[in-house]
Every structure is written in structure tokens, then in C-alpha cells.
């Protein structure tokens, strides 16, 4: 294809976008809206994931040491624990610290532990964090092989619960994403179909005066791609603005959780959205134009 023909296609697409202002606007809005909704979900999901990570991070195994174990032995055991695969980090909690914790747990009844310092009944323990909640059962089995523990508290029930909730959230987001993609693509391809439909006369005239199929297709393809890109850019703009505004509004109200930073989200969606916008626009054009090419 000659370069000047390509230039012509570009000019033609721009002219056509300008000429069919209403329809171009509709297409861009549709792409932008679909991607925006998509983006809202992506942001929600990535925040939920980060929240889930935070919660998962809190899954821990507590292994209570038998009484009268020397601090030298403690260090050996710590090394042993660290060697177990799946263990993320290990914290030692001495008898004194355990007592302090319990008295804090009791809250307004803390007087209860007064005087216990001398004959502290609470055992020292290791608090072991694992990489994934699903590592808990393996790590806990390995720990039970070490003879120095009185008792291993692996909160298996809570862990299972967390695994289930996480899986549920992931499944739900996946399903929702698939549904939204299908809806989005069908909306856009319908819009472009309508654009082509409104120009079928033009297409038929082109065919009569000897235009090849690709000559007819190219401007539509470029137009679709440009509209898709524009829609993607608008969606990205609104998402970024909305998210940073939303974070500012909401952050002071939420103590236990920090938002995924805008930059992280922006980096991951920018190229994805531009590519998806281009693809949707171009592909939508091509499938929409096909049936009008048969003269």
C-alpha cells in the first residue's frame, strides 16, 4: 500500500470522526464507560486483594515452649523453625511478655494478674508467620516434630476460614470481570455496528467505484482504533482523578487499612487499557464492517 494512500486513510478517519460527531462521541463514551466500570472493579479488587494480604499476613502459629528451656536452646529451636519451608518470620515471646499480653487482654480486669510476676504461669512461645495461609498445616506438622513444645496453636479453623473467604473473593472478581468484559465488548461492537450501519450507503458507493475491501476497511479500522484509544485515555483520566480524590476523601476515616497507591494502579492499567481500547475499537470495526462488504 502506498504511503499517500495511508495518509489519505488517516485524514479520512479524522474527517469521518468529525463528520459523524454524534456517533463518534457515542462510541468514545461507550468505550470510556466500559473501561471506567472495568477500572473501578480493578481498583476495588486490587484493594480487596491488598486487604486480604494484610489479613493473611496476620495468620500466625503460636508454639508454646515447655518450661525451663535455656535461652541457648531457644536460639537453636528458632533456627530449626526458620529452616522449615513456608515460614516467613519467627518472633520469640518470653514468659514476661506473655504475662503482659494477657493482662492487656483482660482490659479493665487487669488487676487479676497483679502479683503473678513472681510465679509466672504463662509459657514462653514462638510466634511463626507463614507465607500463605495454606502453608499453615505443613509448618504446624513440622513444628510438632520438635520435642520442646508443650503445645502448638495453629488456629487451623480461622486459617481455613480465611482461605475460603479469599478464594471466594477471587472467584467473585473473576466471574464479575468476565461478565463485564463480555458486556463491554458487545456494547462497543454494537456501537460500531451502528456507525457502520449508518454509513452503509457510503460503503456501497465505494464498492461500486472500484474500491478494494481493504480500502474500505482501513479508515473504519483506524477510526475504531482512534475512538478506542480516546475512550481508554478518558477512562484512565477519570479513574486516576476519581481514585486520588476518593483516597483523599476516605483515607482519614479508615485506620486499619492503607490504599494501594495510585501510581501502582496507574502503571498496571495504563498499557492494558490503551491496548484493550485499541483492540476493542479495531476489532469491533472489522467484525461490524464485514457484512456490509458483500455488495
Amino acid at each position, binding site marked *: 500500500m*502506498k504511503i*499517500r*494512500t495511508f495518509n489519505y486513510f488517516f485524514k479520512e478517519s479524522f474527517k469521518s470522526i468529525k*463528520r459523524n460527531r454524534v456517533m463518534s462521541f457515542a462510541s468514545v463514551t461507550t468505550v470510556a464507560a466500559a473501561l471506567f466500570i472495568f477500572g473501578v472493579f480493578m481498583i476495588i479488587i486490587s484493594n480487596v486483594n491488598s486487604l486480604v494480604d494484610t489479613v493473611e499476613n496476620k495468620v500466625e502459629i503460636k508454639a508454646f515452649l515447655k518450661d525451663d528451656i535455656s535461652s541457648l536452646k531457644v536460639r537453636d529451636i528458632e533456627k530449626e523453625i526458620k529452616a522449615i519451608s513456608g515460614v516467613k518470620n519467627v518472633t520469640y515471646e518470653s514468659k514476661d511478655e506473655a504475662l503482659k499480653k494477657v493482662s492487656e487482654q483482660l482490659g479493665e480486669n487487669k488487676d487479676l494478674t497483679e502479683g503473678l510476676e513472681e510465679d509466672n504461669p504463662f509459657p514462653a512461645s514462638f510466634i511463626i508467620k507463614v507465607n500463605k495461609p495454606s502453608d499453615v498445616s505443613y509448618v504446624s506438622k513440622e513444628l510438632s516434630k520438635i520435642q520442646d513444645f508443650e503445645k502448638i496453636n495453629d488456629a487451623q479453623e480461622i486459617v481455613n476460614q480465611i482461605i475460603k473467604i479469599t478464594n471466594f473473593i477471587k472467584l467473585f472478581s473473576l466471574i464479575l470481570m468476565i461478565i463485564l468484559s463480555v458486556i463491554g465488548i458487545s456494547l462497543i461492537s454494537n456501537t460500531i455496528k451502528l456507525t457502520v450501519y449508518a454509513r452503509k*450507503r*457510503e460503503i456501497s458507493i465505494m464498492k*461500486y*467505484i472500484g474500491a478494494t475491501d481493504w480500502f474500505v476497511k482501513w479508515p473504519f479500522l483506524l477510526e475504531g482504533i482512534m475512538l478506542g484509544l480516546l475512550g481508554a485515555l478518558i477512562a484512565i483520566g477519570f479513574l486516576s482523578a476519581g481514585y486520588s480524590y476518593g483516597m483523599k476523601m476516605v483515607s482519614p476515616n479508615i485506620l486499619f487499612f492503607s490504599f494501594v497507591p495510585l501510581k501502582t494502579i496507574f502503571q498496571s492499567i495504563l498499557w492494558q487499557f490503551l491496548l484493550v481500547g485499541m483492540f476493542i475499537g479495531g476489532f469491533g470495526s472489522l467484525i461490524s464492517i464485514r457484512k456490509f462488504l458483500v*455488495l
Partner: protein
Amino acid sequence: MIEFKNISKVYKNNHIALSNISLSINKGEFVFLVGPSGAGKSTFIKLLLKEIEPTSGDITVNGVNIKKLKRKEVPYYRRNIGIVFQDFRLLQEMTVFENVAFAMQVVEAGHKDIKRKVPQMLSLVGLSSKANMYPHQLSGGEQQRVVLARALSNNPGILICDEPTGNLDPETAWGIMDLLNDINKSGTTILMATHAKDIVDRMKKRVVAIEKGVIVRDQQRGVYGYED
């Protein structure tokens, strides 16, 4: 050059538009296609353009059986045929200039060629002053002349005109006919469907008369031949 061999065309609703037509037109001929409304003239032209397929028979153009053209080859085949439609078929969103330039862009003509040729064509049909107007701003006759300029822009070997003077006053119509005569003399084959009795009678060209899908007359230096 153009050869219809035993062509029949039956439309889906079983209407027989053409039945067993055979006709050959030589390179450089000027042929009038006459006949009452609904006789099958436009059907004949659509077959030649490969817009519709014959129910039976073969059409050969420049030695090529157009039935056997592949989908990809059809555009290149059509580029050799200039066409003036009965109902104009101008692009409403383009100016007069753009409509003509468009036909040249479609066949990937150069920018300079287009810049040079389009004004030539427009002055040929007397529309230089309307170059920047849109079709809906033109009178019926002006639109028809734009279509003619478009059809001529690519120097086609064959020019097909379906009722090109139907919306023109006699004076303008004769201007167009003189133009067609010149183009014909320079070697272009012309096939023109028309109801304009005086034009046919005075031009003294070959006349093919169709009635109810059958050729009833094929006459060199003929006349319109229907009583009015």
C-alpha cells in the same frame, strides 16, 4: 469487447427481468439501451457491473468471463467501468470536489493527479463554481453532472450511463451528450440507458431496444422508435 451470451435473470420473487439475451458490443461503440419502464435496462447494467449474478449465461468483458472473477478481482474489474447512476449516489457528507476526488483516491491515484484532474472534470460538466458545495445544496441536474464528472475521472474504458439526462434541461442535456460524443471518439465504449427520444433520434447511434426482458430491436444508426 462486451459480450452477453444467452443471459437470463430471474429475481428471487420469480420475476423474469431478462430472458435469454445475447448481445455483443465492440470497443469504441456508442450504444443506446431503450425500452419502457421496467423492461430490464438497469438489470442489464447491474449484470455488467457484477452487482448481481445472471441466473444463466455468460458475460465476457475484454476477453474475461466475469462470472469467474474472484471476489478480490472485482474492484479492479470495476475500475475500468465508469458509471452514472439513475439515482445519483453521491456521498452526502462530501463536497462536490471531494466526491470526485474520492473516486480517484479509491483507485489510489496520486495527490497531484487528483489536484489537477478534479477541477478539469468539474469544468467539463460546468460545475467549477460549485466545487465546495454539498450535494444537498445542488439542484437535481447539478447533482447528475457531478456523478458524470466522477465517472469520467478515472478515464474508464467503458462508460455506463443510466438515464444521465433524466433530470437535465434540454440545453444542459445536449451539452452532456456532446461531451459523451467526444469521450466516445477518444476511444471509450459508451452504453447509455435512456428514455430521451429526441436525443436518441438525433444522435444516430446504435440502438438496442429491450421489452419485457427480450431484445426486440438492434439497429445501427437507429432511432428511439416508440410512439409517444
